[in-house]
Every structure is written in C-alpha cells, then in structure tokens.
C-alpha cells in the first residue's frame, strides 16, 4: 500500500499532497516538512530509498523518492510494494504529467494542482496502484477532459476570455486598476 504521495520543491513548498490515510492538516504539514528535511539533505547520487521517517508509518514504511529539477516526488510505501516498482511508477507519473502539460515544470503544478491530481487518480487509487500504462492513462484523461469541455460549451467562453486576459502579463498599472469596478460597468452597458 502507498500511504502518501508528496510533491514539493527544493525549498519544501508543497506542490501536491495526497494522503491515503487520514492525518489532520497540521500533521500533514509536519509530515511534509519532516520528509523534506530528510530528503533534501541527501545528495543526488545516493540511493532513492530512505528509512526513518518517524511521523508517517513505522519500520515497515519506506520513503521512495525521485528528484527532478526543482521538484521532489516522494512516495511513502509499506513493504508490500516493490521498491524498484515504485521508482518506475514515479517515472510514469512524471512522464504522464509531462505529456499532459507539454514539458511540465514546477509552474504547471503550482497553477494546476487539480489537473495533477486527476493524473494521479488514474495512476493510484486509495493507495493501490491502478494503472501503470501511460498510453492508457492519457486516453482516460483525454476522454474525461473532453467531457468537461463539452459541458462548458459556449457559456464558458466569456470566463475563459477573462481568465486569458488576466493571465496576460499586464503592466503593473493595469493590475493595480480596481477590477471590481469593471463588472459594474459591463452591467451598466447591458441594462
């Protein structure tokens, strides 16, 4: 069983966290912090397995992680999982993310943690490995996204447009302009 999946950056900021056993929010943050401290002090050319996380699990549990650029992907698993298998699973996860986001980087995870969760949900369910075949996972994801798109339809267009405008790198003055006034103006125009 996988007990938790954590993704955080080189400074320990959580980018994705999934706990398959209940911990309250404070505990979750503590676990992330402890895991980060354990993992971050290890050099890159050492092995990817780590024992001794005291907060999560016990002697039966292991931390298995991979470090990609600015992100750490850490899986906390018990002895029923194959260590090398989980390492491969992390690879699959990252490659799938890469396919979904097209050259995934930390920013993608920051702004689309929900999408990353959706990828993860196709990979692991309730702490058990669901699917390891990347093509399959991608197919499932595409179909679901298609459903979502068809639902949004035309009514979502304005929202999309606004978010596109917002996403543009506007100069500081524009950003400082009070946005709440705008809807009022639009309303006035309409009615």
């Amino acid at each position, binding site marked *: *069983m996988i007990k938790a999946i954590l993704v955080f950056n080189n400074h320990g900021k*959580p980018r*994705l966290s999934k706990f*398959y056993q*209940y911990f*309250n*929010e*404070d505990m979750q*943050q503590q676990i992330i912090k402890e895991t980060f401290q354990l993992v971050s002090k290890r*050099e890159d*050319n*050492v*092995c990817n*397995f780590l024992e001794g996380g005291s907060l999560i699990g016990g002697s039966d549990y292991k931390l298995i992680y991979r470090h990609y650029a600015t992100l750490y992907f850490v899986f906390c698993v018990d002895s*029923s999982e*194959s*260590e*090398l*298998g989980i*390492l*491969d699973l992390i*690879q*699959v996860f990252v*490659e799938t993310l890469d396919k979904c986001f097209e050259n995934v980087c930390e920013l993608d995870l*920051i*702004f689309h943690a*929900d999408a990353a969760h*959706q990828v993860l*949900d196709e990979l692991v*369910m*309730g*702490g*058990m490995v*669901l*699917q*390891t*075949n*990347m093509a*399959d996972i991608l*197919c*499932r994801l595409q*179909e679901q996204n298609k*459903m*979502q798109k068809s*639902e949004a339809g035309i*009514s979502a267009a*304005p*929202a999309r447009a*606004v*978010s596109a405008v*917002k*996403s543009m790198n506007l100069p500081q003055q524009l950003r400082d302009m009070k*946005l*709440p006034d*705008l*809807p009022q103006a*639009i*309303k006035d125009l*309409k*009615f």
Partner: protein
Amino acid sequence: MALKKVKGNFERMFDKNLTDLVRGIRNNKDNESKYIAQCMEEIKVELRQDNIAVKANAVAKLTYLQMVGYDISWAIFNIIEVMSSNKFTYKRIGYLAASQSFHADSELLMLTTNMIRKDLNAQNQYEAGLALSGLSCFISHDLARDLANDIMTLMSSTKPYLRMKAVLMMYKVFLRYPEALRPAFPKLKEKLEDPDPGVQSAAVNVVCELARKNPKNYLSLAPVFFKLMTTSTNNWMLIKIIKLFGALTPLEPRLGKKLIEPLTNLIHSTSAMSLLYECINTVIAVLISISSGMPGHAASVQLCVQKLRILIEDSDQNLKYLGLLAMSRILKSHPKSVQAHKDLVLACLDDKDESIRLRALGLLYGMVSKKNLMEIVKKLMVHMERAEGTLYRDELLTRIIEICSQNNYQHVVDFEWYITVLAELTEMETSAKHGRVVAAQLTEVGARVAEVRDFAARECGELLTHMAQSSPGPASREVLYAAAYVLAEYSRDEWVMQAAISPLLVCAGLGGAHMRARAVCVHAALKVVANLLLKYEAAGDRRSAIDVIHSTLSGLRPLLLSEDMEVQERAHNAVALLNLVLRKINPDDPELPPEHTPLSDTGLLVQHDESNSIENEQNAEAINGESSQTWTEKFSGGLIEELADLFDGELKPVAPKAQKKVPMPADLDLEQWLSHSRWSSDSSSSEGEGEGAVFAPPAHDPRPTAQFTPQELAMLREARRQEQANNPHYLKDDSPRSYQQDDIPVAEIALEVPLQIHTKRSDKYLMSRESTNKKKKEKRTSKKRKSKKQQISSDSESEEEARPAVALGGELPDGAALSDDEPPAPRDDPHRALDLDLDLPLREEELLTSRIHQYPSAESGLLNKKSKLSKKSKSTEKKSVEKLVKKKKDKKTKEKSEDLMLQETDKPQVNEDFLIEDLSKSNGQKNMKEAVGVDSEILLTETNPKGTKTEKHKKSKKDSKDKESKKPKSSKKGKHETKTGYEEALGISTPSKEVA
C-alpha cells in the same frame, strides 16, 4: 430569469479563480497569512451564493488552501453540494476536495451515501470512476456497509475500467466492513482470471494485501496464482504474485518446493531488476521455510547470494541498497554463505550514502566472530569519529554495542578491551539516551564478568578523573552513574581507591542540568572510603586511615550545601559517619568538632538532622554494643568493619521477567488490612475504635517497632540486611548510627590528578592480541581459577580460545522457568477482523444483496453492537463446522498438490520484454516502453442495470423514517434524524438551483 443567469455569469467572470488565488499568494509573500485570511472570507461569501459554478470555484480554491495547510472541514457541506452537481466538471472539483479533506470520521458523511450510490450507477463510466476514486479516500464503516453491494455489482460491469476500480475499492470496503469479505470473495476470485489484464492485476493486488496479514486463509488460491505466475508477462502483477508467495510459503513448505524451480528460471532469465530482486526475496523466504535437506538447496542459496553480490557491486546505489537489504534476510537463516562476502559489506561501510551504510551496519551483526570483532569494532570507531550526522553516529554506537553484547558477549574474548571501548564511546559524547546504553553495558559487564571487575574499576576511575576535570556532556553524565557504581563496587586496589575519592566528590558537586548520578557519587565515595579503611585497619595503618578520612571530609564539605536535596542529605550522612569513625580512631584529632555543637554554616538542615539522629541512635548503640566486644584488637574497635558491612554483598543479574515469576504466597490476601492485626494485638486500646470510622487513626503509636523485644529486633535487622544484600535495586543508604552536625577543619590536601591524553587505547588490544596471544592465554587461565562465584558458560569452554566466564541469564525465583509464556501484545489492526475462513459456504444472512436498507431500523441502529455480535456468532459457528472443514481442507490440499505437479511439468515461459526494464540502465530514459495489452476500447453503450433502484431506496427510506419518528429515544437515532433532514435539503438544492 435568463437575464439573471447572464448577469450571474458576468459577475462570476471577475471572481477570483484558483489561478488568481495562487498568483495572489505568490505576490503577497510577506503577508501571506493575511492575504489567505482575506481570501477565506471571500470564499465564505461565494459559498453562500446559489450559483453552483461560484461554489465550485470556491471549493477548488479551498482544495488548494487545504494543501497549504488550512483546515477546510467547515466547508464539508458545501463540498457535498458541489459533489452532487450534475455536471462532471463540478463533480470533479467536489470529489477532489472530498478526497483531500474528508476522512472516515467526518461528520455529515452519511449525507453522501445516496449521492455516491447514484454516481456509482451513473451511465458514464467516468462519473462512476470518479466516485470510486473519491470514495476510496474517505470510506467509513457506514458507507462501506451501505455501498458494498453497489460496488460488488460494479465488479462485474462490462467496462474494464470500472471493474478494475471496483476491485480495488473492495479492499477498502473490507477494511471498513469486514462482513463484506466472505460474500464478495467468490467474485474477487473470479476476477483473478478476468480477460482484462488490468482487472486481473487489480484483483491480484487486493488478494496480496489481504493475504499479507492473514496468509493462511488464502492458501487455497495458490494454484491459481501459480498458473498466473507461469503465464503472465505483466511485471507489476508478477512482482505482486511473487511477493504473495513469499507470504504463503512459511505456511506450506510443499508450495515452496514447487516454487524454487520457476523462480530460479525467472532469476536466470529476467532482465528486469525489480522482478529479479523480488524473485530472490521469495526464494529466500522459501529457503527459510523449508528444511535444508532438499536437493539443490545449497545451489539456490548460492545463486541468490551470487546475484545479490552482483547487485551490491553495481554502480547504481538503489541496487546496492536492495542487495544489502536482501542479504540481511539471508543472514538470518544462512549466515555462513553471507559471511563469505564480508569484504563487500565492509566496503559498503565506507560508502558515501548513509542509507547504504546503515544497511551494511545491519549486516555486520551476523558477520562478527571472535576473530574479527576487534577489527570490525575498530573500523566502526573510526567511522564514529568521522561521522557527521547524529543519526548515523547514534546508529553506529548502538550497533557497536549490539554486536559486542549479542548472545551474552559471545564474541568478546577480551573484556578489558570491551571496557576500554565503552570508555572511548563515552568520551565521544553522544546523546544522553546512548549514554544510558553505555552505562547499562558497564554495569552489566561488571556484574556478569567477575574477572574484568578489577580492570573495569580502574577504567571507571580514569573516566571519573577525566569527567571531574572537564565538565561532562550529556552522555558522560549518564555514564557517570554507572562508572561511580562500578568503581565503588569492584575496586579492590588501594591506589585506585585512593585516587577515586576526590574525583567522585568533585563529580557529585558538578552543576548543570539533570544529573541523576550526583547522589550516587557521594554514596560511591563513602563506599570506597569504607573499603579503604577496612584495608588500612587490616594493615594496622592508622595514619593513612586518618588521612583518608580527613581528605574525604574536606571533599564532602562543599556538598553539605549542595542545591540538590539528595546530594545534601547523603553528604550529611557521610560526614556524620566519618566523624564517628574518626572519633573512634583518633579521639584527640584537632579537626574533630566539639561534640554536640550545631554548626553555623549548616544551620539550614539542623532540624532535619536532629530528627534523623534520634531515629538512628538506638540502632547504632545496639550495634556498637555487640560489635565492640568482638573486635577489640582493631584500632577502630570494629567500627570500620561495621561501616564496610553496610556495603557488603554482591549484586547479581536478575532475569527480566523475574518479578513476574515470583509466585504469590498462598496465604497472601491483598484485600486484607495491611497491619491491622498486628497493631490491634500490640495496642489493645485501638481495638474497637477502628471499626466503623473510615478515617479513624489506624494506631496510636506511629512507630510500633519500638515495642519489639531485643531478639525480635535483631532478627528483623538481620533479615533486612539480607534482603538489602540480595536486592539489586537497594541503594543501602540508611545509616544505622547516630551522628551529629559536625564540621572538622581539615587541611587541604593537594590531589595530583595526572592529566591523561586519551588516544585510541582500545587499539593496543588489537595489536597486543596478535603478538602476545599465548601470554594472555596463560594469564587468563590463572585468573579463571580465582573466580568462584561465576558460573562458567558452557560454550566458552569448548572454544579454541580461552575467554572469561560470563554469567548467563539472571536470577529467577525458585521453580520459575525462563520460558516465554507471555501472551502476544494485543494489536490494534483492522486486518484482524478480516481473518475469516473463506472456504466456508456462505450463509443466508451474510449475503450482501439483502442489505438495501441504508437507514438502520430501530434495532439495527446499534450498529457496532450488531457487528460484534455477528462476529461472535460466526466464531461459534466456526467451531461447530470445524470438523467438516478439516476434512475438506485435507482433500483440498491433496488436490492442490496434484494441481501443482501438473503445472510443473509444462515449463514456465518467461518473456523477455518485461515492462520494467533494468533501472540502472534506464535512469532518466523513458523506461515504460511498452504496454501490456490493456484494451482501450470503451463500451459507450451500456444501459443502467439499476435503473429502478433509486426509487426502491426512496421507499425504504421513507419507511424507516416513519419508524424512527415513532421511537425517538436513543442518541443514535437522533443522529439519523438529522441525517434525513439534511438529505432533503440536499435533494432540493441540487438540481433546481443549478445555473449553467
């Protein structure tokens, strides 16, 4: 209406969405919490709106905030609202939030039951899949019970995607609701042979998880798995199956024999390291479980060890780590074959990777022998000096002690060396925790190995001197405790004793944080002085005796004002005792204080001491009276003898369970008043008074001992002394003599403590051992004759090398055996409830289909009770059918073995193109090249087989609601009533108010 919709849409456009929130947090790095608090307020406002899109947006933001560490459990109702939306987009948001924030004990979870059931039976497979994924994160007992049947139905869905998810989901259901296991098991078994490899893999996964905790119930599945193992090419599944076999083989050795060959083939053929590694692991498990008489047994061990050696020698650190891990498993059963690779393990100790070093350390345990112990420990000591991380240092220390002390110091030949190692470990200053470990070792070696005591005392003396000079760290402080004890208890050498007194007293005066050893130091000093005086008396050396007392008294003086209560008390005791002796030896000593004059500088404690002295006076006089007659020829008149008597007797190791094994005396009645009878017989006046009044004084005389006759007194005293001598925990600190508050002005004696530079002293043992092996042998045998009290361990005699006797075990009360008859510690594990016999035929009441009522009626409202009851009844039933099952099982195992034989004949085919490639080579590359044929076709046309179901539920709901309203009493029911209330609100709010 339409206008309103449009208006809402436009308003919504400018709400903060998730991206804005994240961007905002990043732009407000300085006052993040303030910004988030502001956002939370906005979210709360948004959640109050009717527009589901606004709500979903708010919930999406909440999900992000949850990840950053904010509690969002207050929004559970809103999350459920979003989950119940008809739109997949919002559903996704809702279920994600739920899976992140809900848990089995969340309130309002019962609100989700019907909604989830609706989603599970949805037309679209992704809606059902979403519900399954979400549910797997927060399923509770109630949800599991109510939804088990729906999930079971999904297990036979036409869509492999749903089957796969449902199978995995069942494991979660079993955990929460063990009653579902037996009815669902046949279906689960069926799924092991599902046409879809994904479903197959999921079923294997679930069975593996189940069998890991209760393997014996799944033995009957072995043939199925055996077939899967020999036919499947999916590495994920193979790994799981092989792991499962590893769990099953200890229960069925015949299975192991069958497995060896296919596994060996796999080991030879596979290119996937993960599979190879698991194969080796399982072969190891098989080898452990079967007797070594099997043909090819040695070859298998050899193969495993060889393959592991390749792994360990690999440049990939991961493989190295796993190789060492597997080695440690072999070590337990086949230490010889691992010992051949000692060089490899020792080399790994120098690895730069801490995980690998730790693993290698674990292996060392089995690598040491009498011959190489010193060498290995020396290496570890060097490591300890260089180690940076405290974790690794601590681990090293525990390992050093572990490998030395294993099996009653089986490998330690030279205990003087070991004592030196302990002393050096102390000087390395680790943590207090490890100081305690070292301290325990010092006392244990002292107690068990009589021959080394002299040396241990000397070494402890040096340690103490060292500590007295420089303020000790936390570890030394703990060791001090043991060092003081060992020194005082075992030192017999005059010079050592003389040199020890001053450091002991200095250590007792050491300030600083928690220091339990200080009082012990005072006590030890007194003990040393007493023994020393005894020596001087025997030699008739009055002058030295007086000198020693003088120097000790001057050392004790600062302690009389110690801020530590116990140190102060003991110092007073010691001063009083020594003054007593001094007066006897040299009545005209100028340093003796005038009799019975309380001191000005210790006025603090005058009162306390007076009360003490009254108590002790009688005892002391009695002892003085009798002893002075027998020891007239000694210069102290036998007083010193008496003083030394206080510390007489040897402490023996006590077996860890001795306390428990003490038989209860037959006439012991714990209910009885402790000394009522005695008091009432002694003082007649108390009779009749004590009855009735609860708080009546138990006796008039608080010290009834005063009424004993002299004979009784003497007898009691003797018994007490005996008891003290035998009791290892007794500190023997009460002085039976009266004393006065005295202070003797003693001339300061400059104590010369040689400053010693501590080099690696333990090394000399290693060197000298090689050169002067013979010499030592002679010495030790001569020493051996001296030891009388120690039992000689049986195994040490037969060894080629002579080694001091180690007292084994410990004292036990008469008639008690050192057997391990303790019941295992109770485990709090959900898997215990899953320990069910799966071969029994299903009973009528177990069938899940009968569970349509999700609202418990009046009697089933007490859910927990009911489930317990059913478990009980099950167990009774089990007994009744036990015989039947036995017969069946016998038959089955026969069949199974035949089955296996058949399968063995057709050789397992192992494909080369495994999913998981060699990791070491594919590092960084895309190693998931090829998929195992999962059919990606999705059956879009499927009718809902449960179209009528929801109506049915509604009906039953109404019924039970009526029932409940009739009997509104138990608290459980109250809960259910609120539940229905919410349910209705939910039903209204969801579909009609949704604005797209």
